[in-house]
């Protein structure tokens, strides 16, 4: 994804004190110590200061050094995004904050599990579409499928929309994980 594509201008902010600023969507990676309460600190920061969370994922990525990686997708004016990063850096267990949206090209992926219930032509159609999207069937009964798929948030949403008339009954998604392209580590 290029920088221009990822800086989707979702909205024009209302005229705040003299400066008109566009709302941007950013994907931020936060490396933290994997300790009790660290996720609450990050989430509490967002809710307490009125920042948006569009998606948030967390898991330990380095068991030896007890590092967890939090990926948060947020939106705001450039001034707010800068604030979010600085506020995150201020948290004591935070090691590194990386704005993947501005620091070079990056990849975003999300995993989804979709349960579709139905028989006959609709059932066949759902399987056909799943094939086009390269979704996998991970559970099947005579009257249902569970599809597993990874991809960008947009692709997953498109798939869910197509399943809607074909007997969609349940959706579970992981939220976005992201990593920079190229050989450099953050």
């Amino acid at each position, binding site marked *: 994804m290029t920088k221009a594509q990822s800086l989707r201008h979702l909205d024009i902010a209302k005229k705040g004190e003299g400066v008109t600023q566009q709302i941007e969507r950013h994907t931020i990676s936060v490396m933290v*110590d994997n300790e009790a309460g660290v996720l609450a600190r990050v989430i509490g920061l967002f809710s307490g200061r009125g920042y948006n969370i569009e998606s948030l994922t967390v898991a330990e990525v380095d068991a030896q050094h007890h590092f967890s990686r939090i990926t948060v997708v947020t939106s705001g004016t450039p001034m707010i995004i800068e604030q979010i990063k*600085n506020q995150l850096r201020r948290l*004591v267990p935070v090691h590194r904050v990386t704005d993947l949206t501005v620091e070079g090209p990056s990849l975003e992926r999300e995993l989804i599990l979709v349960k579709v219930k139905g028989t006959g032509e609709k059932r066949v159609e759902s399987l056909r579409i799943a094939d086009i999207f390269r979704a996998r069937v991970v559970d099947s009964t005579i009257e249902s499928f569970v599809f597993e798929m990874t991809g960008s948030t947009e692709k997953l949403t498109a798939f869910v929309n197509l399943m809607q008339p074909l007997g969609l009954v349940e959706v579970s998604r992981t939220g976005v994980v992201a990593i920079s392209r190229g050989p450099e580590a953050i």
Partner: protein
Amino acid sequence: MATEPVTGADIVIKALVDQGVEVIFGYPGGAVLPLYDALFKQNQIKHILVRHEQAAVHSAEGYARSTGKVGVVLVTSGPGATNAVTGLTDALMDSVPVVCLTGQVPTHLIGNDAFQEADTTGITRPVTKHNYLVKSINDLSRVIHEAFHVSRSGRPGPVVVDLPKDIQQAKYDYVNYANQRHRSYNPQLKPDRALIERAVELMAKAERPLFYIGGGVVNSGTAASQLLTEFVRLTGFPCTQTLMGLGAFPASDPLSLGMVGMHGMFESNHAMHDCDLMINIGARFDDRVTGRLAAFSPGSTKIHVDIDPSSINKNVHVDLAIVGDVGHVVEDLLRVWKARQVKPNGKALAAWWDQINKWRARECLRYRPSNDVIKPQYALQRLYDAIKGRDYYITTEVGQHQMWAAQFIKFEKPYHWLTSGGLGTMGYGLPAAIGVQIAHPEALVIDVAGEASIMMNIQEMSTAAQYRTPVKVFILNNRWMGMVRQWQELLHGGRYSESYSDALPDFVKLADAFGWTGLRATKPAEMDDIIKTMIETPGPVIVDVAVDERENCFPMIPSGAAHNEMLLGPDDQKASPVSEEGMVLV
């Protein structure tokens, strides 16, 4: 350097001693009994028994902000911890280093709604710089030392360490981790050299420069204040201070314009509005300072020096941001300024001072004197005249009296002015004064109070009596929550909803009841004698000064207005009514 295993409570005491702690402010309870037992068996740390946990934190703040050391609090679980929350929030907002040890129910009972259990780390997470729940005795030594490091370094703030009772009783080796480097927390102290060069370039060619300095200078230490004073004098630029920055630059220096902001000086606010270069050192563009953001200093280039990157570009966009400790930054600025032998634009600067002196000539602190009723401003002028030249410390409560104290009492050095700026906590002044007095037993410590605020932590009179701390409480008693009444007058058609201080105690009798000395003044002619008696009386004294009930605090930037729309006095009011947008602001 492992030693014989000792109890968790003893580990805490050893760590405190190794951190140089001499005084703890606290209140015992079930979940901290092992710690209190350990305190009982030692004589290196003095414990001050407060009468409410909120006051323990404010006392620790007073101790910390008048010494530059970390203030230490010890309270029990549940209500002990929840009562401390206001104090912790106050310390966070004003960047005061405080370590608060809270008791907790034993680890196996956590989550069971046990007696006096509260989710202390959950409750205090947004009101502390950091907090810890110690679940393993192995972590205890490290956590206590880390808490002190986090609290005092970078932008200082409160840190809570929650200590379950079984951890206090468990045994383990004590290890001194005092100089351990933290694996993720390392605030930047030294500034980027290129930014310093750029700042000096901007300053060299400025025509209407202004220093705007805040509490960060005080937090950086007395040496930083001295360096800054030297630097400001070298430049010849005017220097205005925030409420928290009073004393960071000598008030008597001709370059000082006094306080900026909502109730700041006319000349300071107009200089802020009209300057072409603003040099913000250790201040945070608080809404009490900026007024309406869209109209805030519209023509200036702004330099912002702050140790906390999140303070930069938060409210006001700046042109040059320098992250670092004020002491280091000013040292570098001085060096570059001297090395380049910078000569500021003398002609432009002279014209700028001419303009400033015209604003000064308006004498914005003027008020209508009276021979019959004590004007609060007069009371404070007489107080200041009496204490000038002594080693005095002033604390305040919150409201009109606080602003008048900031306007009329002058400070030549940092650490001597203590007020609740960010949170605006009524009830701060008395416990803070006790904390100051504990740290400076010989000094003259005065809490300038209002009759409403003082009632919020009045129980601390008992603490002062117990430790014979000779604090002086100087109440400007106008029988109103004055600032509330002033706003109701300005914004709500004079409908004084619940702002009258009814059923007040007789403060002189109250003083008597607590073993204090009580004095009262009702006429201007009595002021000097009363103040003299207050200062000369050895123990704690309460002075009830019956002041003009209707006096309002001026000058004032009304809510939602700009710096050049200041009201100078009551007659100015009708000229610029408060806008609807301004009504929403606090």
